[in-house]
């Protein structure tokens, strides 16, 4: 496979996952905030959303303060094509990467991506203003699920598929870590304000819902998970597909399947990824109980470094 096509496929996977997680996080946090028994709940939710999406800290106050805060934040986050982090920009990147690798994709997969792009681009601005992000964000979820279905069910499970899947898993790990960091920061702020426990529980629920983990975690713990349970579930669960361990393990297998390099070289992405996945496999809640935020920050840095190393080593053209 051409390195350039490999690069497009890797980023195709990454952008799909990025759009889905940012969009879902925004929807879930917003819905959760509307009945939160606290002052400045709007601003609180919007700050969390912008932080998770990756907006610069210094730009956040101008978007959040003052009347019309949600409208301002959501138009910027969803439909502003000049904002590189926005959903419309991310979906455009999904499509541009798919176009670049068009000959490596099935027609069914390409068509689903193309429809996704047009659905977002043609979404009526007045409808978005009136309804808020809920419907559009659900569209993102639905299209993303269809696209991932076609990735798994219409592509040859060869190197091309492996690279898209590698991109999906790596970006999912990045996004889940960003969600955890953002939510941890929210909870730090709430705990300083001595707010009722119900708010903390609601934050734990919204954290899990942001990763589509609420139902399965309830099923697993048979009760509403505690904050540490939620972190445990999203970081270390070995069979939940959004957990960091699950994604790193699968990404490591895919990278080895690609069989591109030397797995024993300590600077090779294979070695780095395998080592990180193994570290997660042997981690327990004791490793992050004291400072979950720092644990997530450190691992986010490690995941991003491996992504960079994959590109540098194999996908440069």
């Amino acid at each position, binding site marked *: 496979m*051409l*390195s350039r096509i*490999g690069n497009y496929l890797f980023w195709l996977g990454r952008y799909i996952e990025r759009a889905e997680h940012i969009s879902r996080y925004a929807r879930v946090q917003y819905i959760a905030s509307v009945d939160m028994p606290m002052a400045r709940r709007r601003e609180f939710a919007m700050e969390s959303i912008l932080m998770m999406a990756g907006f610069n800290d210094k730009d956040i106050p101008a978007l959040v303060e003052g009347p019309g805060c949600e409208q301002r934040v959501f138009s910027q986050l969803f439909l502003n*094509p000049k904002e590189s982090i926005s959903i419309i920009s991310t979906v455009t990147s999904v499509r541009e990467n798919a176009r670049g690798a*068009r*000959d490596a994709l099935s027609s069914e997969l390409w068509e689903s991506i193309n429809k996704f792009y*047009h659905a977002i681009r043609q979404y009526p601005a007045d409808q978005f203003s009136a309804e808020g992000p809920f419907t559009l964000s659900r569209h993102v979820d639905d299209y993303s699920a269809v696209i991932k279905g076609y990735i798994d069910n219409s592509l040859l499970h060869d190197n091309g598929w492996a690279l898209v899947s590698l991109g999906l898993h790596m970006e999912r790990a990045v996004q889940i870590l960003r969600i955890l960091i953002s939510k941890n920061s929210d909870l730090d702020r709430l705990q300083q304000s001595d707010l009722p426990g119900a708010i903390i529980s609601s934050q734990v629920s919204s954290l899990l819902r942001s990763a589509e983990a609420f139902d399965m975690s309830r099923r697993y713990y048979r009760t509403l998970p505690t904050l540490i349970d939620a972190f445990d579930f999203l970081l270390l669960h070995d069979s939940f597909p959004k957990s960091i361990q699950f994604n790193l393990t699968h990404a490591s297998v895919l990278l080895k399947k*690609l069989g591109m390099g030397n797995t024993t070289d300590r600077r090779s992405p294979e070695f780095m990824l395998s080592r990180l996945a193994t570290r997660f496999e042997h981690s327990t809640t004791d490793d992050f109980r004291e400072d979950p935020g720092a644990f997530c920050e450190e691992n986010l840095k490690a995941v991003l470094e491996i992504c960079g190393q994959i590109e540098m080593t194999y*996908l440069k053209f």
Partner: protein
Amino acid sequence: MEEIHSTDPFSPYTPDIGKLDECFDENGQIRPHYQRTFDFFSGLSAAQIESLHGFTQNSFFNQGITFNVYSDNPEGSERIFPFDLIPRVVPLKEWDELEAGLVQRNRAINLFLYDLYHEKKILKDKVLPADLIFSCPFYKKEMLDFRPVDGIYVHISGTDLIKNADGYYYVLEDNLRCPSGVSYVLSNRQAMKRLLPALFLDHEVQAVQDYPEALSMMMREMAPNRMDDPMCVILTPGMFNSAYYEHSFLALSMGIELVEGRDLFVEQNQVFMKTTHGAKRVDVIYRRIDDDYLDPMVFREDSMLGIPGIMSAYRAGKVNILNAPGTGAADDKAIYAYMPQIIKYYLGEDAILKNVPTYHCSNPSDLKFVLENLAELVVKPVDESGGYGVVIGNRCTREELEENKARIMASPRKYIAQPILSLSMHPTFIDETLAFEPRHIDLRTFTLTGSSATHVLKGGLSRVALRRGSLIVNSSQGGGSKDTWVLSA
């Protein structure tokens, strides 16, 4: 002429007086090979036709069957190629003659190119003026004395034809560099089969879906040294090129890599592509970039699209490039006029397909005639494609005619002129009126030439000028297309 009532609310359909209508004869009667098509559409309600039409356009849009129009706004430059529901139907006998003419023309063109880059006998025998060749920007001295694999220069050609009011097909131009449009032929056919299977079942229509396989076989056959399992690729300028959809479509249909110049490099006269598993040798390149951009070491130094050293690898016989560089010397519109003589010279046969009479503005007597009769002529730049720069005399104001005269006199070699031929017309569904109306059409055919066989795609791209009265059918100028059905009996 009498109005022809097809079906409400689409009637009346009124063929234009004095024009040849593909579907109706001069008495307003349906031509026999269109009877079943006409009956079929007559049986549909207005709402059904509108719905089918809308469904097709949406389907093309969702599939990304689009082309790019160069503009300042890259986001606004992607367009669907409008597709019309009523197919053009060509009887077998008519097609057989066309096909024979196309095969003949391509044989002669390949012999002509070989001669131009070797002994130049045709110039020595003064069949055509040497100046015309040596002043042609597409004649490449880098090809002199080089023999491509099996002496074939043009592997993929697109020939534009029109049917005149006299009922004969005329070749309008040869496209011998990077002819585009075949992906739309295949996509149009796919759309028609999905939409109107019953209409297909009523006819015996020749298949077009074998084109990618024929192209793939031809490419493999063209590998240097007849190697067994050559690595064939398509070279694209990239996804912002107007024909990128077609490049990716062909690569996908043949299961080969679509490469850009930056994916390739040359080492010791061998071309390689950069893959995730290291360098892989490339043997055959179907290039969709112009000669000038192919190799910055030989042609344009500033080319960011090409591969430094590829011409050296090509001349060393380590890679084959399809079509060969320098084929544009034979599709210059000024050379076109000599095609009947070229066919006669190399094959000793009369041309089967007719040529449109052509005046060379580089020739003083022709120039005088052109300037005196500009209002009755079509003037074309010899080195443009896509309908750009074409001036139709009877559509110009007096001021426009004067401006064009000045332009021609400033660089006569750049222009040819032809009488305004009457392109045939065809019923076409028009969005604005939700009715079938007559529109001008042409036909682009596609011919593949390999060592062992010549394959003519049985159909082609029927392009439609969607604006009433317009003769410009090019997609970049608002044209649409139709499926072309060649009947097998």
